């Protein structure tokens, strides 16, 4: 259990801007992101839009190459170019589940056609008949029963929840080692969310994969994961065991997220938010701590240098000088 499947060390991802006015500037989508993922662990990355959580997933899956830093998957460096064969192997081992269940499925293919592709691309099954068996098997696992009824259908004939089930089935079908799920439930109806989350947890157990769950919902992260990373404006603000991060949150941003989440129990007795404002521009991110312009506890030194990760408790770190 203690073996790391994935290690990120000081990873930066900067996107160059090409317009005339902005030439020479960069969008700082990820800065100094370091974390590791143990085998079989569920790690949640929580943050608002623009916090760099999707970029992190895209770097791990080699959709983007990092600008600086080190990404190692099962001890192997993921930088520079790979041969086509190695690239294919990496994509088989690291699968993604995308946010938009409507955009992620080819509308001109039937579910059967969509589900066969990974088996053919990764040469998992030799014969047509065994492909079909495997497709049926995985469709049953995600609750699309009876499978022959679904394989003939086109994506537009399915509901949002069913489409997301197809996406999840496709990700699990090639027996990957790591699954990156990028807000898999945020576009689904509320009544579907829990069953999709439970299904992902069950499949994760059954297939023994490691899981990175990206979300903006702190409560959902707590439900799904063993550990939580809180990201803000491209940097990790806090990382630690799920219960620790939520019950003993240290960073003011984590506390802000916590106080903003709806909670019927507290009702109107809740305290008003301590801070407003938006995520800063990632083209010229604030100097020092990226959260300092919004932080209610800001001190002079916060704008001067980026605070280092500080140990708060066991396996619990926060990027704050307080």
């Amino acid at each position, binding site marked *: 259990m203690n073996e790391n499947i994935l290690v990120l060390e000081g990873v930066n991802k900067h996107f160059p801007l090409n317009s005339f006015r902005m030439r020479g500037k960069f969008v700082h989508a990820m800065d100094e992101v370091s974390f590791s993922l143990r085998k079989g662990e569920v790690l949640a990355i929580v943050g*608002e*839009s623009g916090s760099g959580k999707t970029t992190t997933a895209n770097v791990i899956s080699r959709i983007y190459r990092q600008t600086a830093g080190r990404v190692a998957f099962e001890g192997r460096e993921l930088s520079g170019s790979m041969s086509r064969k190695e690239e294919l192997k990496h994509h088989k081992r690291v699968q993604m589940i995308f946010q938009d269940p409507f955009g992620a499925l080819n509308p001109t293919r039937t579910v059967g056609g969509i589900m066969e592709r990974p088996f053919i691309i990764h040469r998992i099954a030799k014969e047509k008949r065994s492909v079909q068996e495997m497709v049926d098997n995985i469709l049953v696992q995600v609750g699309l029963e009876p499978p022959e009824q679904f394989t003939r259908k086109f994506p537009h004939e399915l*509901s949002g*929840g*069913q489409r997301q089930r197809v996406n999840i089935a496709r990700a699990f079908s090639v027996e990957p080692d790591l699954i990156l799920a990028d807000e898999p439930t945020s576009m689904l*109806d*509320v*009544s*579907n*969310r*829990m*069953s999709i989350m*439970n299904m992902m947890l069950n499949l994760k157990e059954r297939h023994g994969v490691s899981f990175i769950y990206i979300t*903006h*919902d*702190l*409560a*959902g992260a*707590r*439900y799904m994961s063993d550990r939580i990373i809180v990201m803000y404006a491209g940097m990790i603000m806090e990382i630690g065991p799920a219960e620790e991060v*939520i019950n003993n949150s240290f960073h003011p941003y984590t506390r*802000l*997220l*916590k*106080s*903003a*989440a*709806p*909670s*019927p*129990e*507290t*009702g*109107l007795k*809740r305290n*008003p*938010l301590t801070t*407003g404002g*938006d995520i800063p521009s990632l083209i010229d991110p604030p100097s020092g701590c990226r959260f300092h312009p919004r932080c209610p506890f800001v001190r002079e030194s916060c704008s001067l240098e980026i605070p280092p990760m500080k140990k708060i408790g066991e396996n619990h770190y926060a990027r704050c000088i307080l």
Partner: protein
Amino acid sequence: MIQLERPEKTRLLQCKNLVAGYRIKSGFVHAVDDVSFDLDKGGFLGIAGESGCGKSTLAYAIMRLLKDNATIEGGSLLFKGIDLVGLSEEQMKKIRWVDISMAFQSAMNALNPVLSVGEQLTDVIHAHEEVTQSDARERAKEVLKLVDISTDRFNSYPHQLSGGMKQRVMIAMALILDPELIIMDEPTTALDVVVQRTIIEKIQELRKALGFSVIFITHDLSLLVEISDTLAIMYAGKIVEYGSSESLFNRPLHPYTRGLMNSFPSLTGKIKRMGGIEGKPPDLLKPPEGCRFHPRCPQVMTICRESCPVLERIDDRHSVACFLHRGAEIL
């Protein structure tokens, strides 16, 4: 139909047995089917339900904005004693936006991309009142200040604003003629949690200051329970449970409401496996016989397949449409 007995408050909107929907080739889609509720002056009514349950159709019906094949088939909408259903388009124009306004679901698409925020706001004033350009500009700037947008943004175009700011402009636009009722159709769904919270706080603050009533439509029950006084849970075109939010939260009675309450993991307390609701909402063209929830209901009984339960009063502040609770005194 229950009446929340608070005689000191005056009733602003009374919706009675409203039926609205879409006429299509193969029949009539009952998007809003026999819906009744009351809204007091200054009240905050939350309507919760999944997509396709008819909540947006209900909002458009109240605004009389149903277009083309969508119609109100029956029932009444008494707004300060006037039945909105019977009004002509001319008469309705005098009420729409002046007395009842609306903040639409996606602020990104509801604002005109080629007009500045200021122009759009002054347009609203000019459409309803005879005022000079400078007066209109003053009013528009004032209302922008109300929603915490600096007046430098008066000449900005929508694409220059963040999602949260656009949504606040939408609210400013709904407020500009000082209406008595604002219908908000998922105003915060596309926003980040922190931005959502600031918008909600702003709405509550303005409501206290200006005294308008709100109908707030969303699928996020956890948010609604927290912010509204009265809650209506809609499923497949019908209100299945109705009452004070406190009572609904502490004692959800309808299996659908219970399922919804069980669909949001909590930040506090022990982590328990939650269920959600299996299955999907029915096709409103051919709704199931009997109770519309029965194919998904974990506590379905024989009677549920045969006849449809109506809203029945449990106590002063709570009513439910479910055979499990019919005639039963529930403590």
